[in-house]
């Protein structure tokens, strides 16, 4: 273990469960407990719990908070009702993505911003650099833990632990409850393509909450399953599909950009990128066999390199490798084929929209 690696408030729980621990974004995190495929399927068919305490949790408040966030993020913060959240991005002047984030309005002048672990310090510095006198930014990450409960049975399981029916919480909604004399934040969000919640709990009760979920039949799941699930769902990950050099146009994330709300950092560059012929497009890719695509593998059409794999996974539902990757037009068109170079051998991949990587439940495996 390298020096300075941090552990979450649930590290003893992971050790007790015999998890395999790996360093990730400066944190010592469980990659798997029983096995990645088993955990992936638990989330698709039942319910899984993930320790996501390594993610950053910031509270942005003050009279100028909404205007401040609207000037730095892509989605429309002023339009958020209290109790609702949205997916958004911090973009730089060149239109590149500093991070993808979720912004929840938890009060008229108070916002919860959840950011990637790998970018938490960078984001906090960026926000503080731009914050005026009417904005306060508090980092609540160290005082709390965060657990994602995901899967078709997740709402019922998390609701039974919290003693609340959670079905009334809208998608991307946020609510506060008391649990064991502690203040708990429940968000109906996730990163798996399944229904579920992400729950922020004070450090003192986080292990109790985790154990209660497991006692309710929720399966502990590690980062390995989390990554496979998000690739199946076609969700981007900073450092793979998006980074400071890639913008929302190529990454197919314009649905989370509000161009009509007024100016924000990066707006001009994004508007210009929209007018240009696309250099590359993020697509979904399905392998013809069990070979697993990995980040950095090159994509070819005859002798021309036409793209790169950004993330790959083995998907148990299709029984084959799947990926996301940047592909240059015209090879990005649905139904087309590209060849992936793996150790000097070519493997055929079919191009599909990334939203279609995950087969609908009950669909025949093609």
């Amino acid at each position, binding site marked *: 273990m390298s020096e300075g690696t941090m552990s979450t408030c649930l590290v003893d729980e992971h050790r007790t469960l015999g998890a395999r621990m790996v360093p990730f974004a400066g944190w010592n995190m469980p990659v798997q407990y029983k096995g990645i495929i088993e955990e992936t399927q638990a989330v698709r068919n039942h319910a899984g719990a993930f320790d996501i305490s390594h993610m950053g949790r910031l509270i942005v408040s003050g009279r100028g908070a909404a205007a401040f966030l609207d000037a730095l993020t892509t989605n429309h913060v002023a339009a958020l009702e209290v109790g609702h959240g949205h997916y958004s991005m911090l973009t730089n002047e060149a239109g590149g993505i500093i991070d993808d984030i979720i912004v929840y309005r938890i009060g008229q002048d108070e916002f919860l911003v959840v950011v990637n672990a790998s970018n938490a310090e960078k984001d906090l510095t960026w926000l503080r650099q731009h914050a005026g006198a009417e904005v306060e930014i508090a980092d609540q990450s160290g005082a709390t833990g965060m657990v994602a409960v995901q899967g078709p049975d997740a709402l019922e399981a998390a609701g039974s632990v919290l003693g609340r029916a959670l079905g009334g919480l809208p998608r991307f909604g946020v609510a506060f409850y008391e649990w064991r004399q502690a203040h708990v934040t429940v968000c109906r969000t996730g990163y798996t393509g399944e229904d579920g919640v992400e729950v922020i709990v004070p450090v003192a009760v986080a292990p109790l909450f985790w154990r209660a979920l497991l006692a309710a039949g929720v399966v502990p799941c590690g980062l390995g399953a989390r990554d496979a699930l998000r690739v199946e769902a076609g969700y981007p990950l900073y450092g793979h599909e998006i980074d400071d050099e890639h913008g929302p146009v190529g990454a197919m994330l314009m649905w989370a950009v509000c161009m009509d709300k007024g100016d924000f950092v990066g707006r001009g560059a994004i508007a210009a990128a929209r007018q240009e012929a696309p250099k590359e497009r993020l697509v979904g890719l399905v392998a013809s066999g069990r070979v697993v695509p990995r980040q950095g593998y090159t994509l070819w059409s005859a002798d021309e390199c036409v793209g790169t794999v950004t993330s790959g996974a083995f998907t148990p539902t299709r029984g084959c490798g799947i990926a996301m990757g940047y592909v240059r037009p015209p090879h990005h068109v649905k139904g087309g084929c590209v060849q992936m170079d793996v*150790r000097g051998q070519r493997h055929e991949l079919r191009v599909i929209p990334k939203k279609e990587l995950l087969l609908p439940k009950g669909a025949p495996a093609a």
Partner: protein
Amino acid sequence: MATPEGLLYSKTHEWVRVVDDVAEIGITDHAQAELGDVVYLDLPEVGRALAYDEIFGAVESVKAVSDLYSPLSGEVIEVNAEATSATDLVNSDPYGQGWMVRLKMTQPDELQQLLDAEQYGAFAAESAH
């Protein structure tokens, strides 16, 4: 972690079972446990000549890809087609049905460089942490 007696082992976590001049090769229980669920095997063609320590293929798990190193010199005379299609055999039975290739040895002296069960067990326990 199982490390059966009677087999020989490499420091790159392959095992070798010798019958006359043929060496059967697979990956160890320690290696399959480190890799996790194996989903793809990239194995050589029958007839290929392998040199000692040459990369002869790859084993892919859900989370990682790992090269296979030939612990001996020889010619590939058989490839385990069953394990190629049912890759979970590498996890469930690494020393049996999960074998990968059979080599006709050309330099049997190389066997002396390999570890026995006790030596490999100690080596694997050390490399795990």
